[in-house]
């Protein structure tokens, strides 16, 4: 009776979500006429461009994650421990990347850090790579900060810090050996989410003209028929894996967390 609408809504949604997934999978297997084959995947994986851009994006993602952890863990820790009054401001800033479209910020980068500016990051390949990494760190800031801050809330950082200090630990030791391991699950959640965002990111990489996976996919999509579908399946698989890993670490941390 009243459950009819609930089933109806659910089935409608499931059909809507399944069709494109089935469509792209079917399409990716149809390169050879008449039979299903993995030709499209073979073509994509063998493409040196794919290998180069994918590797580039993986390295960028890892660099972004490391930089993000080094930036956000000490900041979130410091705000919780010593500067609770700065909390609303820091939180507001971390949410800004959700408000300001990425394309606008990267527009600013291009104008602000061009070859004739005081900090000519776009003047060299390395400089542009670093700028792209900062852009990605900016993009993932809301997720990284939210995730780590939530992790810090569940542990008593003031007591942990005092205990470590009374044993003679310095700030670096406290952060690396005491705080970080205790919020590892949230750090990893933020890291996987960052990976999922960075790996296929298009706008910033394209506008900074870097050979990343996102722009590669777009160019391939404009020129080929079946390979893009194979790329879509791969990208969906990566997103799924990242989300699955987040679920896994949060479940794992629930078991290791000490009950209070």
């Amino acid at each position, binding site marked *: 009776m009243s*459950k009819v*609408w*609930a089933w109806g*809504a*659910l089935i*409608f*949604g499931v059909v*809507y*979500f399944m*069709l*494109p997934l*089935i*469509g*792209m999978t079917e*399409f990716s297997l149809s390169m050879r006429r008449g039979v299903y084959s993995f030709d499209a995947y073979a073509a994509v994986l063998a493409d040196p461009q794919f290998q180069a851009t994918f590797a580039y994006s993986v390295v960028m993602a890892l660099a972004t994650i490391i930089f993000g952890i080094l*930036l*956000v863990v*000490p*900041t979130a820790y*410091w*705000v919780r421990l*010593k*500067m609770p009054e700065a909390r609303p401001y*820091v939180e507001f*800033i971390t949410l*800004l990347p*959700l*408000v*300001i*479209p990425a*394309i*606008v*910020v*990267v*527009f*600013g980068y291009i*104008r*602000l850090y061009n070859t004739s500016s005081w900090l000519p990051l776009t003047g060299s390949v390395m400089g542009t790579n670093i700028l792209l990494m*900062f*852009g990605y*760190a900016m993009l993932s*800031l809301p997720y990284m900060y939210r995730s780590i801050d939530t992790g810090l809330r569940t542990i008593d950082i003031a007591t942990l810090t005092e205990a470590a200090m009374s044993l003679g630990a310095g700030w670096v030791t406290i952060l690396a050996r005491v705080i970080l391991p205790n919020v590892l699950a949230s750090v990893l959640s933020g890291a996987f989410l960052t990976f*999922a*965002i960075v790996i*296929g*990111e*298009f*706008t910033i990489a394209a*506008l900074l003209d870097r050979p990343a996976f996102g722009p590669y*996919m*777009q160019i391939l*999509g404009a020129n080929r028929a079946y390979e*893009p*579908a194979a*790329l*879509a399946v791969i*990208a*969906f698989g990566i997103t799924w894996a*990242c*989300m699955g890993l987040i679920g896994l670490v949060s479940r794992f941390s629930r078991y290791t967390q000490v009950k209070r």
Partner: protein
Amino acid sequence: MPGQTEAARRLELRWLGLLPFAVFSVLFLILPTLYIVIGAFQTPQGGFTFQNILDLNTPSIRSAYWVSIKVSFASALLGCLIGFAMAAAITIGGLPKRIREPLLTFSGVASNFAGVPLAFAFIATIGPAGLITLQLKSELGINLRAMGWNLLSTPGLVITYLFFQIPLMILIITPALDGLKKEWREAAAILGASGRQYWIMVGLPILFPSLLGTLALLFANAFGAVATAIALTGPSLNIAPILLYAQIRGDVLGNPHLGYALAFGMIVITGIANAIYIRLRARSERWLK
């Protein structure tokens, strides 16, 4: 007073802990944005002017904004309605409990599956040579194309955007639906209210800020989306983010400061949408705390 200077120095040291974060956010978030905002109000010579903003009022730019707003609003509204129906189905709809977790997990994946690959998935499904397009033609004799369907259009964009809008709605509204206490429903019933009266007088008003707020959030989410649109339609579709993309790559407007104004307009629109979201969320949290 040595004590006071000591205290002052300690305060400065405390601020020092935030220095890396402050430097990063100023250099790579705030300054670049301010540069655009200020540029929008400057003449090429550096003087203050409103002319750039006024110059946005050309048919092409106006239509780019208008199409963007229409696509974003339509995808936000449909995403809200469908996402709400699905979230309601798994929370208060009485469906088996084991459906809930898989759907929420999938929503987490789908809401992050945006950008270029998402466009490919829809091209492979309802594009000119897509699975459904061909099946409908060969099995049922329905020619979508002849009926005027074109994925590379605003309705096509809306349908594609729904793939991340609906899951986002589900993720945001499910906790709000969980927050509807069973006791409210029972209190209303024991006071003589019918199910309908409960929803009109209590249930929906409590959810209303969340619903409207999420609508604003989804709107901003779609408005700033660039990659999906470009991969789907190439540079052909005239929407604000694509126009800005083209402007950044090649100054198609022939006036850099007009480009800043275009970007400034986008910040204003997403800023308003987010402000609505934050305000309404604060209200519903105050009610439900």
